[in-house]
């Protein structure tokens, strides 16, 4: 039994390397702080700790998971966060309102627009600002493109964590095309910094439209072809089916949102449940599945891509003329108050809670990232599965570590 018998070293309590045996045991060198920690760091018969990450080939970003294994079976696990923590909330409290969009981008490096969106939404609520309709259309258009890019990448990643080599590179074709497109629109390929309080940064341009047109003409068939590699693959289906099953009650109690929640049969989509922007005017479905396992999460995202294509199509047809920015001052000083912005991102519900104290900097900006919550539920999904499925289950929840660690 490994307990906390070892005393913290006099020089640095964080030195976890046991010099005597020369092996890294991921047991903290201080007494347990909580009931849960004490339970986790006590080994039963035939159990061992395995430290997965932060440098492991398949943790998505800088995540460390301490696994308690019995043979190949995971008995329990404890995710350790904070390797990417930069204190963005604190930074935002010390930046002015326009500047913050820039700070939020790197939190969500897969689909940055969705991190900007709840922020501008909350700020617009604080300012009682009416956003031009064209700007809203452009937001929805670029946002849905970004959603497809994110989902395409998810499909590849999930397959990669199940050991498939090719899908990730095939899905990068779609993503690269979309990212180039958004690059033409926003000026950046990854961290777009595009939405502004009161509108967007630039109007649709020729390069974006021509790329979008040629891509839209073949997108559906191409995505179909990419998913065929996995959908009809016996090994893939057998591994993903029943993996990390989450039922409706558990999903709601674990505060899971987005595709992971819809895969359990709850049709909660912020775009429909609490409409924002121009989504009430658009015609699209909220696909759901009832199985709640990894396969359902994967297939649901494939369905969502198709819905996103529908939305893009409608946006292009209904796009109104007009300005793309509301008239707002250079220095924003909203009246003191509180506002809550929430959008449906590819990962779930991104929300931001903003408190203004009348100065040019928000008094508090709370960034809520669904990846963080989903990662919290990994501890309940993985135990009982094999080591091989740890990363697969984690991948099927599709977390982005930038947002998890803030």
């Amino acid at each position, binding site marked *: 039994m490994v307990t906390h018998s070892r005393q913290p070293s006099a020089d640095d309590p964080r030195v976890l390397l046991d010099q005597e*045996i*020369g*092996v890294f045991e991921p047991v903290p060198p201080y007494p347990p702080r909580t009931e849960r920690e004490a339970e986790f760091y006590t080994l039963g018969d035939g159990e*061992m*700790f*395995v430290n997965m990450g932060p440098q*492991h*080939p*398949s943790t998505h970003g800088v995540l460390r998971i301490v696994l308690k*294994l019995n043979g*190949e079976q995971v008995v329990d696990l404890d995710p350790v966060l904070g390797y990417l923590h930069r204190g963005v909330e604190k930074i935002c409290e010390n930046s002015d309102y326009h500047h913050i969009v820039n700070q939020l981008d790197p939190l969500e490096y897969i689909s940055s627009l969705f991190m900007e969106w709840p922020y501008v939404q909350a700020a617009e609520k604080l300012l009682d600002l009416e956003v031009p309709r064209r700007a809203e259309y452009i937001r929805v258009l670029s946002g849905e493109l970004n959603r497809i890019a994110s989902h395409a990448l998810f499909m590849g990643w999930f*397959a*990669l*964590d*199940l*050991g*498939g*080599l*090719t899908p990730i*590179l*095939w899905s990068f*074709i779609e993503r690269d095309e979309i990212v180039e497109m958004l690059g033409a629109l926003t000026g950046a390929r990854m961290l777009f910094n595009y939405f502004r309080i009161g509108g967007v940064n630039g109007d649709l341009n020729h390069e974006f439209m021509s790329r979008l047109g040629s891509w839209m003409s073949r997108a559906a068939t191409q995505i179909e072809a990419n998913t065929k*590699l*996995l959908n009809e*693959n016996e*090994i*893939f289906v*057998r*591994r993903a089916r029943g993996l990390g099953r989450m039922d409706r009650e558990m999903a709601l109690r674990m505060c899971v949102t987005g595709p992971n929640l819809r895969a359990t049969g709850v049709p909660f989509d912020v775009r429909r449940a609490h409409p924002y922007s121009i989504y009430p005017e658009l015609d699209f479905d909220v696909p759901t599945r009832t199985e709640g396992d990894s396969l359902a999460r994967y297939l649901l995202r494939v369905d969502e891509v198709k819905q996103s294509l529908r939305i893009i199509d409608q946006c292009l047809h209904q796009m109104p003329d007009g300005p793309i920015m509301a008239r707002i001052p250079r220095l924003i000083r909203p009246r003191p108050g509180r506002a809550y912005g929430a959008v449906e991102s590819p990962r779930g519900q991104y929300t931001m809670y903003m408190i203004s104290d009348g100065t040019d900097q928000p008094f508090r900006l709370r960034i809520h990232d669904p990846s963080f919550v989903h990662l919290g539920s990994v501890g309940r999904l993985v135990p009982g599965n*094999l*080591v*091989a*499925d*740890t*990363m*697969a289950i984690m991948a099927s929840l599709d977390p982005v570590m930038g947002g998890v660690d803030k």
Partner: protein
Amino acid sequence: MTTVSRAWGRLTLPGKIFFTVVPLLLVLGLGGLIAIMLLGPLVLQILGDNLPLVRFVIAATAVLLAAIPIAFLNIFMEMKVIAFMNLRIGPDRVGPWGTLLSVVHGLKVLGKEDFTPTGADRTIFTLAPVVVFLGTVMSFLVIPFAPGLFGQDFNIGLLYFFAVGGLTVVGLMMAGWASFNKYSLLGGLRAAAQIVSYEIPLTLSVVGILMLAGTMSLNQIVLNQSGSFLDWYVFQQPLGALIFLIAITAEANRAPFDLTEADSEIVAGFATEYSGMRFGFLFFAEYVNMFIVSALTVTLFFGGWNAPFDWPFPISANLDPASLGIGLLILVAVVPLIGTLALAAPFWLMRSSMPTWQALVIGFVLFNVLAVAAVLGWAFVSWEWVVGLLWSMIKAYGFVFFFVWLRGTLPRVRIDQLMNFAWKWLLPAALLNLFVTALAIIVLGR
């Protein structure tokens, strides 16, 4: 400062080398000549008496030497083929089409630090790659690549193959255990479980062939399959071939059964703590193994070196260089000159901007290519082992491609699925295959 040292000091570097090497060579050459004259007959006598041993030593050396280029070729092939499947370009910087990249990889591996983690069992940790590599390479010995081109023709060749090939699992377990790393341990134990489980259907699936062929000698098995491609055992043992192919994929730790080094799960499995040339050995062993299992599949089920159909135009070119007389001199001296000039002329005439020397270089290279092609063609029609080698290589690399293709396409199976598949499906199927074959032999009275 004597005269000699002053003279030595005035010499340039090539001069120093020349005046050191040439006397040394002279002395050594004379000494060697005398030694050969005195000891030669005795040595020849001893060698002649122990011909099988000599043959074995030569074959083992050849196999060890051949293993590295084969591994290089397989690694390059894997990189390039998977790149094409992934819609990438793949290696294209080092050498033409990136062909030299795996050579550079090899050099890089040689240059890296050979690191032993603290707490590792040094002896076993160091020995493990050697065991893996030797186990792999030694199973090369019995595989016949062409008529007369094999290391040893054991009458228990197949048994030897499985026995020596089974040594690799010992090496993998040693690597996994001695690394003192939990990922390595998991990888090593996975390797043990997987390879031991798949040994059984693998061995059972070839028993059908043994009954049909009546021998374990791989050479004889290939000879039994001569004729058209319908004589290949794959058509008499389709189920056996399928089981064999699946089991050998698991045996070689190839995707979708590459659980021992599943990078998304256990980092690199048993190889996690290895670096430098030890890792190189493990890595090479894997790729050599891929080639060996392909060659074995070809040998057992796809007719080995036999061509799938008879060559319709029997040519027997039997050029004896001695019969050419003065023509040989002309062939050696004049033909290269004329060939080079003739091949250079079109380039020189076509492009006025091209300097003469460039045209000549192109002509020379082209002539050499053509000459090599002609020599190979001549060898092809006149020596049957060249034909056999060609066919067995084509087939074997077909299977290497197949394994690479699998890796490019399929996700990895889980360990419980892997075990279930071996024990619940492959083993009964192999037994069924065995039973049906035995029944057929009795009923048909062969």
